Every structure is written in structure tokens, then in C-alpha cells.
């Protein structure tokens, strides 16, 4: 059996007295698409940031391709992150650059490709996410939310990553555009053969793009299993979440009306 593409073991992280991750265990196998679902503030984003090295966990192990990555910095970190492409929640496009320069960023700044070489690749990536050449010279500020996500996706897949992270891919856009983005995600991960890890609280999106779903609650994975089995999950927390009920075992930090 090969090592999982991404392995998290007992990952803990707290901010001050607030425990955000309380021993997260999760294996993502190569070529698999895993979605982590969970409410706001359940530690989904922190999990991704810990894997990317944007935050350092207090305890636990994180390995990519069997290689421990916690505390790794500098050139080594750049080499590891070169395997990973990420689509940010608000796309996080560089607003000082044009659309095509954004799409080409990982190639030019990360891999040292010349602008002349990178441009056709960027244009091809933009075409793959459904943006034609007329958008290439525009500024990201002139695009709608859905368009920005497409550019963000083009930027993430341009470096031909082995792993793709999607941070709330459908948040902040309308349901139709959300579904188009979902389909793009499925298409891009299939075409590139990349391993995908998504965090979301949008169940429609989770069902569409995942092979496997893991539910994060109070800093722990409380349920994980194939997408088809989630409706039969014998877990009150999962059932409350996927059915979107206000009443149930999930403790919410706000006072009920």
C-alpha cells in the first residue's frame, strides 16, 4: 500500500485559550477528492493553512507524499508548495497584475519561466476555465465574483499541481455560477489527475465534487466516509448539518432567538 498523498495525524492548534483543532486525523489518497464539511469556525480553514505551512500546528504530524512538512521553511517549503495549487475563497487575485499575468504567476515567479513562454500557457488555462482572450488584459477588479474564481482556478492549475485545495469554492457567488464552478472543479481535477481537498459548508457542492466527505466538528473529524453513504451516516452531528436543521446536537456559540 502506498503512502497517502496527504496525511494528518493528531493535528492540534489553539489560538490563546481557544482550541481550534483538537487532534485532526485524515488521510487523503492519491487521485481522490475529499471534502471537509463543517460549520463556520470549525477549523476548516486552519486545517488547510496548516498543510500549506501558512500556520504551524502546536502538535501532530502532517505529511505530503510521506514526507513530514511541519516546520519546513525556505526553499524546501517552496518545493513542497510547488506540488499544491490553491483556489482561495475570494480568489485572492493579485490586483496589480492583469488577468493573464495572474494566471501565469506560478509559472513566471514560481518556476522562473519567461513571460513570452508563460503567456500561451496562461491563455490555454484561461480557455480551460471558460474565459476567452478578451479577458486576458483586464484587471481582476473589473471581473465579477464568478469570473475571479475562474481566474483563480486557472492560476492554480497552471502549475500542473499534484494536489488542489479549494477553500469554499461556491461561497459568495450565485447558485448557478456555483454549479458551474463545481463542474469546472470536477473537470479540472479529472483532467489533471490531481488529488483534491476542499473545505466547504455548501452540501450541494460537497456532494458534487467529492469521492469522500469528512465532517469537522469542534476541532475533530467526527465522521468520514464515501459521499454516497453520508445520508445513511449514523451520526447526529452529520445528520443535523447535512439537513441544515437548527435543532440538534451541534452547539452553536450564539444565543438562540
Amino acid at each position: 500500500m502506498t503512502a497517502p498523498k496527504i496525511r494528518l495525524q493528531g493535528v492540534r492548534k489553539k489560538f490563546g485559550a481557544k482550541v481550534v483543532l483538537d487532534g485532526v486525523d485524515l488521510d487523503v489518497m492519491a487521485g481522490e477528492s475529499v471534502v471537509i464539511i463543517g460549520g463556520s469556525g470549525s477549523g476548516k480553514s486552519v486545517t488547510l493553512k496548516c498543510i500549506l505551512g501558512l500556520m504551524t500546528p502546536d502538535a501532530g504530524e502532517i505529511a505530503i507524499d510521506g514526507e513530514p512538512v511541519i516546520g519546513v521553511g525556505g526553499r524546501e517549503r517552496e518545493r513542497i508548495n510547488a506540488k499544491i495549487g490553491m483556489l482561495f475563497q475570494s480568489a485572492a487575485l493579485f490586483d496589480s497584475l492583469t488577468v493573464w499575468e495572474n494566471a501565469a504567476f506560478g509559472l513566471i515567479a514560481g518556476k522562473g519561466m519567461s513571460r513570452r513562454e508563460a503567456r500561451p500557457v496562461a491563455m490555454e488555462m484561461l480557455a480551460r476555465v471558460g474565459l476567452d482572450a478578451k479577458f486576458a488584459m483586464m484587471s481582476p477588479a473589473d471581473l465579477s465574483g464568478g469570473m475571479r474564481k475562474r481566474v483563480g482556478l486557472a492560476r492554480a492549475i497552471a502549475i500542473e499541481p499534484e494536489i488542489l485545495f479549494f477553500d469554499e469554492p461556491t461561497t459568495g457567488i450565485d447558485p448557478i455560477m456555483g454549479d458551474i464552478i463545481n463542474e469546472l472543479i470536477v473537470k479540472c481535477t479529472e483532467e489533471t489527475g490531481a488529488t483534491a481537498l476542499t473545505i466547504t459548508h455548501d452540501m450541494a457542492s460537497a456532494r458534487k465534487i467529492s469521492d469522500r466527505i469528512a465532517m469537522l466538528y469542534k476541532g475533530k473529524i467526527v465522521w468520514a466516509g464515501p459521499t454516497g453513504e453520508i445520508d445513511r451516516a449514523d451520526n447526529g452531528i452529520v445528520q443535523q448539518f447535512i439537513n441544515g436543521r437548527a435543532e440538534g446536537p451541534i452547539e452553536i456559540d450564539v444565543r438562540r432567538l
Partner: protein
Amino acid sequence: MTAVQTIGRVFLAFLELVGQVTMFTLVAVSHCLRPPFYFRLIGRQMMEIGYYSLPVIALTTLFAGMVLALQSYTGFQRNSVGAESAIAEIVVLSITRELGPVLAGLMVAARVGSSIAAEIGTMRVTEQIDALVTLSTNPFKFLVAPRVIAGVATLPLLIVIGDIIGVFGGYIVSIYRLGFNPTLYLKTSWDKLFAEDVITGLVKAAVFGFIITLMGCYQGYNSRGGAQGVGAATINSVVSSSILILILNYLISAMFFGT
């Protein structure tokens, strides 16, 4: 006991801040010295910091030189000392040694430091800095180093131009308002100016350029919490670099002219 605790807490917070700034500075400097260098970005920052600051610097030093000539003349009249050669000397020395670097430094801190802090701060809160990391690009290399290099390189150039314009400001007032002899004025300015006057000014300029860009980057890089955080970062960058400019200006002056 509580008073001691409070003092202790404030002191520890201060030490933590000093530690953070020092670490940030060391990392920033190490990235300024090691390849790869993004020459395209350095060039763009030199335009932004140097070229676009010229009008502001020119106006500031021009009027500083003018008012200096005017006020010293008033002073000399009251004390009935021979004003003509003294004013040229006062203007040229004050401008090159102190007023040129300090006024230009403060103006650049307001213009450039704030814009760096706001830009990098916005990049921080919109996850653009995280995006850089995921694209295998070091934010220090890509954002901080080009700005710091451009600041250290362009501020001395700006100050040289500012010095010339400042002396010219004194010249205008002395010749057209106070009726001095133009040849004598220029000759005195030139004779009384030594290399070390200009060199201290340039050393100051390079130091100020470093401080302004570094503080802008530091505050922006560490900004938290949306629009308000970016606003706070902008204020802090201008206030901290302005205060550091004034303190370091005194220290450098004391070092060169102290004895």
C-alpha cells in the same frame, strides 16, 4: 503589586515588538542581499518611490530654502551682522546637512510609507500574501525586498535634487527679495560646502529610505482584521517611520558633527 505587573506587562510587550521588528528586518535584509532579484519589480518601485516623489520633494525643499533665507536675514538685521555671506552659508549647510534629508524623509514617509503599508496590508487581508506562498513565491523576496532596495537606492538621489532646489530657493529670496549679489551668493555657497556635509545628507537619505520602506512593509505585512486593520497599519507606518527619522537624524548628526 498591580503597578509592577502593569509595568512588567508593558515592558514585555515592548520587548516582543522590538524582537518582531528585528526579526522582520533581518529576514528582509537577507532577502535584499540574496538572489534571485526581481529587477522588473525593483524598477517599478524606484519609479514609484523616487520619480513620483520628485514634485513633492521639490516643493518642500524649495520653500524650506526660501523661508530659511528670509528668516535668517531678519535675524541678522536685528543683530546688525553682515548678512550677505552668512545667509548663503546658513542656507547651504542647513539644507544639505539637516533640512533636505529630514523634510524629504518625512514627505516620503507620508507619501510612500503609507502607500506601501496600505498596499501590502490589503494584500494580507485579501489573502494575496497567502496566495504568493502557495505559488512558491516568497513574499519577502517578492514584496519587501524590491521596495527596500528601491528605497535605499532612490532616496539619496532624491535628496541630491532636493538639496539643489533648496539652495536655489534661498538664492531666489536672497537675490530678488533681499537684493544680494548673485555671483557672490553662489560662490559663498560653493566655498562653504564641504564633501562631508553632502555625504552625511546622503547617508541619512539611505538610512531614511530603509526605515520608511521597512516600516511600511512591516506594518502592512502584519496587518490584521480587514479595512480597519489596514488603516491602522497605514497610520502606524507613517508615525513610526517619522519618529525614527527624527531620532536617527539626531544620532547621525551627533556621530558626524558631534565633537
